[in-house]
């Protein structure tokens, strides 16, 4: 494949044929704003935020869909480009709730970020706004279509990655809306709540229900880890605030799954803070469990196992390890059985 040399904002760069302008700009460290663009999904070219000026072209083409050509001269911040982006932001915000102060997406919202970057303060357009009811009839995802900017990433991720086609555009003009099946709610549809749509949503239109009100994006510490359910081994970020896991978000660097998760991985980890968690050792006395200290409990176990060993021999104790525990714990458990108990009576539920 041959290379193409072009100029972007006065800087020359050589990239492989077929590269798009937005990709070439990225290589130069020039960040072009875009709301509907996601390298993992098909190109939509619909938000028009990424328009640039290219010498010899009539209009302002979108950099996400324009393929580089030899000698192309691109300006990413010309007056016309900046005017257009500002106008597009104004148009979007004219029909967008201005509740950033309480919006869960605050600090992590692309629309907010671009409005800040382009200094969009006053909205020239005062007119109708949508007033859709907020959809909360499922325990996983809150859909607030008032905050939707019709970028269509959720539609594409549902179709192209999940292969579900639950979401699509409906209606026309200003009433264009991303709907679920025949304008149902997610709960009424074939949606399986993988939450990929939430992962790609640039605004607060799609949110993880369990995280609302639990913390701001900038207050949250994200810890990448491996899912504790099935053996696919998806990675994601545990979102931690004040020592509590408040939810799970995708981590695009995950080797196995990228941004994608299933309903359990994304929404099922609230079991961590379930109030029924065992939080102290318990010893059964007269048929009732009584709280104990670690010393009491462990001494008792050590004593009892030693007794049984002594009385009935090494082979009289059996141990079940766990396919839900870590490698390190499994290693230690079998070491414990073999080196301490003195037999090979270790097994685990490898078969379920």
């Amino acid at each position, binding site marked *: 494949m041959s290379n193409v040399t072009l100029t972007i904002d006065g800087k020359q760069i050589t990239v492989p044929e077929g590269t798009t302008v937005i990709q070439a700009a990225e290589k130069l460290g020039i960040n072009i704003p875009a709301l509907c663009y996601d390298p993992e999904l098909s*190109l*939509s*070219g*619909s*938000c*028009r*935020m990424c*328009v640039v000026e290219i010498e010899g072209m009539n*209009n*302002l083409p*979108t950099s996400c*869909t324009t*393929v580089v050509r030899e000698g192309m001269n691109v300006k990413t911040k010309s007056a*016309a480009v900046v*005017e*257009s982006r500002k*106008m*597009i932001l104004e*148009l*979007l915000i*004219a*029909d967008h709730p201005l509740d950033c102060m309480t919006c869960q997406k605050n600090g992590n919202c692309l629309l907010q970020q671009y409005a800040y970057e382009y200094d969009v303060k006053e909205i*020239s*357009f005062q*007119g*109708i706004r949508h007033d859709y009811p907020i959809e909360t009839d499922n325990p996983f995802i809150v859909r607030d279509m008032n905050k939707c*900017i*019709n970028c*269509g990433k959720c539609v594409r991720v549902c179709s192209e990655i999940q292969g579900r086609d639950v979401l*699509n*555009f409906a*209606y*026309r*003009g*200003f*009433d*264009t809306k991303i709907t679920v099946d025949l304008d149902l709610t997610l709960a009424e549809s074939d949606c399986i709540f993988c939450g990929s749509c939430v992962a790609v949503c640039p605004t607060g239109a799609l949110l993880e229900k369990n995280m609302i009100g639990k913390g701001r994006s900038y207050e949250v510490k994200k810890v990448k880890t491996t899912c504790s359910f099935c053996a696919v081994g998806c990675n994601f970020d545990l979102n931690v605030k004040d020592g509590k896991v408040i939810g799970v978000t995708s981590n695009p660097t995950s080797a196995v799954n990228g941004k994608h998760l299933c309903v359990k991985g994304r929404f099922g980890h609230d079991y961590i803070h379930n109030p029924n968690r065992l939080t102290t050792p318990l010893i059964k006395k007269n048929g009732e469990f009584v709280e104990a200290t670690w010393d009491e409990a462990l001494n008792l176990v050590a004593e009892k196992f030693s007794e049984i060993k002594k009385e009935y021999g090494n082979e009289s104790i059996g141990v079940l390890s766990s396919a839900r525990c870590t490698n390190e714990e499994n290693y230690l458990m079998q070491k414990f059985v073999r080196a301490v108990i003195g037999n090979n009576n270790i097994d685990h539920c490898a078969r379920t």
Partner: protein
Amino acid sequence: MKSLKELRNHLRYKYLKLNRPRVSIGMGTCGIAAGAEKVKNEFISEIKKHGLDVEINITSCIGMCYREVNVEVDIPGKENVVYGDITPKKVERIVEQHIINGNPVIEWAEFQMLAEDGTSIHPIPDMEHTPYYHLQTREVSARCGRINPENIEEYIATGGYEGLENVLKQTPQEVINNLKRSGLRGRGGGGFPTGQKWQFTRDAKGEKKYIICNADEGDPGAFMDRSILEGDPHSIIEGMIIAGYAIGASEGYIYIRAEYPLAIKRLQIAINQAKEQRLLGYNILDSGFNFQIHIKVGAGAFVCGEETALINSIEGKRGMPRIRPPFPALKGLWQHPTNNNNVETYANVSLIFREGVEWYSSIGTDKSKGTKIFSLTGKIAKTGLAEVPMGTTLRQIIFDIGGGIKDGKKFKAVQIGGPSGGCLPEDLLDLPVDYDSLIEAGAMMGSGGLVVMDESTCMVDVARYFLKFTQSESCGKCTPCREGTTRMLEILERITAGKGKIEDLNLLERLARVMKTTSLCGLGQTAPNPVLSTLRYFRDEYLAHIEEKRCPSGVCSNLINYRIDPEKCVGCTACARVCPTGAISGTKKQPHVINTEICIKCGACMDACKFDAITRI
């Protein structure tokens, strides 16, 4: 191929040498709407009553929509006479006087077609010398209103499929070369050179290629494509087969809106008949070339006139435009190279290859060849279709052909090119109509709709009307179109409601600029045109609405009031009786008054007043 030629000669003879009188009733959508079905039945029963041997035939619209129902009476060896404005009541007299006794009903006759020997009936004008037709060059629409569109024999007899025969003797590349030489440009709007477009698709790599005919005529006030579809469907099919041969496609789709049921029916009949004659299907005319055509009925979304949205719609997806590039010539229908032209373009193609490139390119101007069909609507005296050579001026079309403004009012503007076009004022009427002059003037050829406006039309309101159309037809995909058309419409609504601010004009212009330069498809890019052209040519009307809170044409209801002149009012109560909201009060024989709080400004009182006592202010 010899057999088609033989068939044509045979049919020519059959249809030229009538052996009995023939009555052809214009049964296009316009004719049927005007009562053609009843007229036809009346002819049947009259003829039966008199025990006559007369052929009743149907044809389509001849272009005089303002004079429907049209009936052509054809007596063997005599002049053909075309009557206009025929009702069932008039049928008896035509049958008795003209068919039985050989005396045409002169006062109902629109024109005559001269007999072979050149004789004519005084004083009926012959077609070419009527005011309506004398400036027209009916080539593409020649068969419309003259042949039976449901009978392939009449098409073949009038030179149909001769173009295809000629094409099959050439190599595909020769066909494209000839098309390029003809200078044909797409009749759908943009005016892209058709030969070049075909070349792109021909050169594109791909096992499978497609031909699409865009019959999704969506501009308000445009109906020339429908008229060809209804009046001469084979000319489109022939054009598509030629395109398929030249490009290397074996399948074609006609994308047509469901609102055109008659056109769909006639197309289907035509396709079936063409198949029977082995003009469609496998091994066409023993050439080894295969081609088939499917009809895809669309749901009537304006945006589906945009070719990539149309392609999505054929594929069963929502009609939303795709990003370009890749252009359909490379990746179109189901990602295969696809050529898309509109109805009138394909009809031109069959004409070009029948009559020859040299003949064709002798018509029109330097850069715009051939003819263009315009639909004349709005405040024009003669509503209908007019086919003129490229380069004819707007004044000729509107005043000479169209008979000027209805009811003797004053011309104000003409909207050309549909919602994407612009409004041109009187001083541009001498503009020759061709692709490039129109673009320069801020309008566009579009598909050829001409909406004529007179002094009673408010240009701000016109802009508002078109924005309302584009706003509700926007597919919603890209931000500038979806949100921009909405906000633009809101601003125009504010101005027409008397709530506009002078800054709004600047905002409109800024918004228009962004929509034009950043929208995804042609719909959004051209949506601001009606606003920009009216701002350019009728800025004073905007200013009157904003600064004086006045609608100079008296259209914008928020800015007008009706008043009864007590001097002139005789208290006849006619106004009070027609007022739908009871806003007019007064004692009999005393001057009445209008309560402006209740008045909805419908104007019914003004129409009802016989004493000119009511004025609009």
